[in-house]
């Protein structure tokens, strides 16, 4: 494994499989245990450096680090010296001077973790940067698919919705391709990025045509906070053409699953009856996120400092 996890492309097939296998072993080892804690990273310090709001990712990383007995420092831009104008670099150097071994960073600017990785000696884990990548989300999605369907090779995954702004989609396309899955992106043309033709994925504008063949439907959140231009005429029209409702769920194959990285807009991209159905892995994904992040932190930090 490389020292940092900045994007899904940092993982080749062997590394990605190692992360998933490690997560599975950790899951099995901790199942049903009273003490859900391992001594592996005792004495290591992990900083959660969050410049953007987050519930599940920050808590998930915090829990993962704590379950491995690392010390965790949570830093959010609000209420820190960032509001006094301190730069990312100065903040990072300050944190490193205090002895952090790894920095988990979320930033609204694409590429911020890459810059950070050049400034600090410890490991940097990208927890979402702008519209670029969110590699641990892709890992936990791949882990969830493998647990539910038993395989990744040849699995047909439809990624539906706001691909343009979605770092989840970007990381998933890359990682799922690495692991042998076949990805189809489904979105209105206005919500597909320039150059999507060069991605290792098919592109479709017609959700109803893709659904019957899909083993996995991954719904993306419509990111209202990034909708500064009119990408579609109205929420209702988007929902009718690209939302997953009960009728559309009906045409899915028997074993097909429905995923969503959260937070959901119920009634917009996904209907409540779909989100709460047995096909939905949405809650499972959150649980798997902790195991996968434990595996990542173990593999990056467990060994000798290089």
């Amino acid at each position, binding site marked *: 494994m490389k020292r940092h996890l900045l994007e899904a492309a940092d993982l080749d097939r*062997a590394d990605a499989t*190692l992360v998933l296998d490690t997560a599975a*072993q950790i899951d099995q080892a901790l199942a049903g245990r009273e003490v859900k804690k*391992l001594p592996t990273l005792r004495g290591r310090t992990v900083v959660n450096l969050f410049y953007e709001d987050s519930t599940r990712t920050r808590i998930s990383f915090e829990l993962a680090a704590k379950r491995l007995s690392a010390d965790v420092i949570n830093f959010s831009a609000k209420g820190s010296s960032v509001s006094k104008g301190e730069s990312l670099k100065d903040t990072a150097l300050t944190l490193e001077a205090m002895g952090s071994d790894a920095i988990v960073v979320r930033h609204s600017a694409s590429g911020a973790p890459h810059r950070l990785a050049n400034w600090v000696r410890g490991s940097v884990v990208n927890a979402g940067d702008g519209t670029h990548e969110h590699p641990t989300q892709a890992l936990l999605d791949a882990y969830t698919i493998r647990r539910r369907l038993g395989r990744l090779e040849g699995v047909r995954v439809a990624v539906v919705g706001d691909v343009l702004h979605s770092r989840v989609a970007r990381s998933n396309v890359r990682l799922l391709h690495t692991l042998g899955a076949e990805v189809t992106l489904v979105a209105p043309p206005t919500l597909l990025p320039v150059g999507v033709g060069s991605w290792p994925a098919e592109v479709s504008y017609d959700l109803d045509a893709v659904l019957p063949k899909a083993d996995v439907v991954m719904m993306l959140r419509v990111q209202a906070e990034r909708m500064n231009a009119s990408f579609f005429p109205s929420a209702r029209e988007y929902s009718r053409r690209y939302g997953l409702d009960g009728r559309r769920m009906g045409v899915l194959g028997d074993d097909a699953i429905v995923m969503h990285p959260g937070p959901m807009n119920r009634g917009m991209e996904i209907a409540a009856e779909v989100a709460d159905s047995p096909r939905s892995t949405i809650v499972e994904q959150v649980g798997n996120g902790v195991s996968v992040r434990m595996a990542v932190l173990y*593999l990056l930090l467990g*060994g000798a400092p290089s």
Partner: protein
Amino acid sequence: MQYRRSRSDHSFNDPSSEAGKEAILARSSEPALGASSAPGTTTLLTAADVTRVVDRMAHQLIERAESTREGDQTGGLADLVLIGIPTRGAPLARRLAARIEAFSGTPVDVGTVDITLYRDDLRRRGVRALEPTTLPEAGIDDSVVVLVDDVLFSGRSVRAALDALRDVGRPRAVRLAVLVDRGHRELPIRADYVGKNVPTSRSQSVKVHLTEVDGADEVLLADHGAGQGDRA
């Protein structure tokens, strides 16, 4: 990848590692046949010896369990749980359980505990892939756990296993069974059941091969001076 690479830059003379054992684990993915004919290698136990030794250890486990039943500290076979330490402790524990059942008619619970995340040498030697942890459904609370491993060397694996067990439950007692005790302990740990005691020097390595993992049963003593190259 890091966890593989770091094995090789580690000297087997390092006092705090179980160098001789790691040499064995590192080979686990290759078929290990034909090693006995290499120069500098002697056979400590043949396949027939391994079978005999496992049988004897099974008898000893039965005796100990039954003889203490009249006392009050430990129970009989029903309380016994054999926990193997991966890689090769796991099939050994299963074999012991099968022999105990064959000799006594009483089935014995078996499990495995992976100790990788409890090791004290991760920082020195880098991370490595994990092995499965499986425990009997009834858990290990109030049972008599016998840890099973292939080679007892520095004792650090056993220490890690004891730490792992503590997080899993609270057995009434923990005992240790090993196929080979090669000496050179670095911790106050001893085995309760030993298949074979082998005096070794630190520069030698003991290789246990089991059919389940390596395709054949045998125990070999290799001289590193002979240039076996098995630290790679």
